[in-house]
């Protein structure tokens, strides 16, 4: 069923990068290295976006997650130097295991059911890949079209602006 071509090889490579990076984040004792592994993982996700013919999302993934959020995380890590090497280990392994397995099952159901389950939304689209190819122009129009996603787009913008103003207010608190 799975044929070995450039696409599957690339998919495998990016999956390894994504999952390996994620493992690195979880297993590393050094917070800064953990942040670097997080960037590796996010970079893998950007690669997967390219494979899905979504170059815009890939570029935004790199720009926002690696270029801004991860940098912010490393910045915070650097400012709290004593946090970088944590010796205590998390000992409640059984609780952790149960929660992890439950989460995994939940995510699997959440991803597989609506897409490939009975009456799944993506089943027909996946069988004809050409039918779902859209370019950046379509994305741009969808975000400002009154019949499509203009409301979520504006709500998200408002939320971000509010968060930004909130951050400024909190930072200025003792000055006032």
């Amino acid at each position: 069923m799975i044929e070995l071509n450039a696409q599957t090889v690339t998919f495998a490579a990016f999956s390894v990068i994504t999952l390996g990076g994620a493992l690195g984040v979880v297993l590393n004792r050094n917070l800064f290295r953990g942040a670097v592994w997080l960037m590796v993982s996010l970079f893998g996700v950007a690669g997967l976006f390219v494979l899905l013919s979504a170059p815009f999302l890939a570029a935004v993934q790199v720009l926002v997650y690696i270029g801004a959020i991860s940098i912010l995380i490393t910045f915070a890590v650097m400012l709290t130097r004593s946090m970088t090497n944590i010796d205590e280990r998390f000992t409640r392994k059984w609780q952790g295991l149960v929660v992890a397995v439950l989460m995994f099952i939940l995510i699997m159901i959440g991803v597989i059911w609506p897409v490939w389950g009975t009456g799944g939304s993506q089943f027909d689209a996946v069988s004809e890949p050409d039918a779902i190819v859209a370019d950046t122009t379509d994305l741009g129009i969808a975000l400002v079209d009154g019949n499509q996603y203009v409301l979520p787009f504006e709500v998200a913008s408002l939320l971000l602006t509010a968060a930004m103003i909130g951050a400024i207010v909190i930072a200025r608190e003792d000055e006032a």
Partner: protein
Amino acid sequence: MECTGLCELLSAGGMDAGLAMFLSLLVGVVLVASVPLIVVIFLIWVERKVAARIQDRLGPNRVGPFGLLQTFADMIKLLTKEDITPTNADRLVFNIAPILSVTAVLLVWAIVPFTPYHIGVDLEIGALYFVAVASFGTLAVMTAGWASNNKYALLGAFRVVAQLVSYEIPLALALLVPIMLAGTMSMQGIIHAQVGMWFFFMVPVAALLFMISSQAETGRGPFDLIEAESELVAGFNIEYSGMKFGMFFAAEFMHVFTNGVLVAVLFLGGWLGPGLMRQLWFIHTGTPPTMLPPGSTEAATGIWLLYFPLPEGNFIGWEYFGVYLPPVFLALIYLTLKTTIGYFIFILARNTFPRVRIDQLMGLNWKFFVPVSIINLLVVAFALQVIRSLGWLPLNESGQVDLTSASFLDTIPMTVVLLVTNIVLAAVIMTWLRSRSRRARLEDEAELEDLAVVGAAGD
């Protein structure tokens, strides 16, 4: 992706089609990535010479003619120097940082259009790709500062991150203006949209904002707080020696050169220039340039004013000493010339402006460049809508706004409106700056007077 050129040659020789494709792509990638690496060797010489002239010195003049081989000598020196890794450094991250720093710049070259046909990959999201990969540079500096396990390196890295992250905002906002004018983020698309008029003449304020913030992104004077040779020990790269230091150094030079190319592409028309009209005609219509009938509609588009056509007949290029130079080479020469203009301005700015303080640096960005670039974006967008409603935007046959088929004359009305808007904007900004600096000066003077009186009374 179709198999042409080298790939075609290889598969004709009996190679597996997939492998031939891969090999030809690999050769392309290596070639494109080599361009900045080779050019930078000579750029270092150019920069040292120009800097020396500005400072009334001679510059490198011993190794080779005019000191041209000085950089090679320096390279050999750097390569043979001892490679030191501090004992308590995070070895892996420490070694990755210089590589990342060079990679960040080399990645940008994937979208640099050398000629109408030669480009690494003409991404639909080219400009966004540039902003995205440029952020790897910040990452490199920070990992370097952290992994060195040195407080001076870490402090240097803090300053860099603050600076680079801040100046990315006006950079991206200035970048949005040519994208808005061209209606595409593709680099080739942006160049094609400038066939009638270069964007520099439409939106000089955006061009200036782009140049200033990219100068800050490279961390060079007057924004060279990253290194500040005369103030800091060396900044984030203090623990690096030998070629690892050399890589940071080369990355900085390549970054400046890359910015020169981007200025040329985004605002100065890239590879456009006299003699390339037929190439453009070919790209737009698919008619080979040599088969154009004389006096065809080519003339009617009116690009004549800026771009004189090639000689008639079976033209394949100009003959120089028995070698035919196709028009595509001309494109490369135009791009190089325009890049040189941008690059030279960057060097001039580096060597003639005094360095700003860190608080001035941040104040300048957040209180001046960010608001100005936002206002600039809004003003240009508004002006474009006004021009559109007036019907002064060049349209193509199907009635869509299209600058790629516009002639010089077609673009004059919109250029005039945009230019006037820009001048008004610049005048307002200047007046505001003038009154602000006057107020600051008066305050300073009043303070000094107070101090003088106190001093006199105390005696």
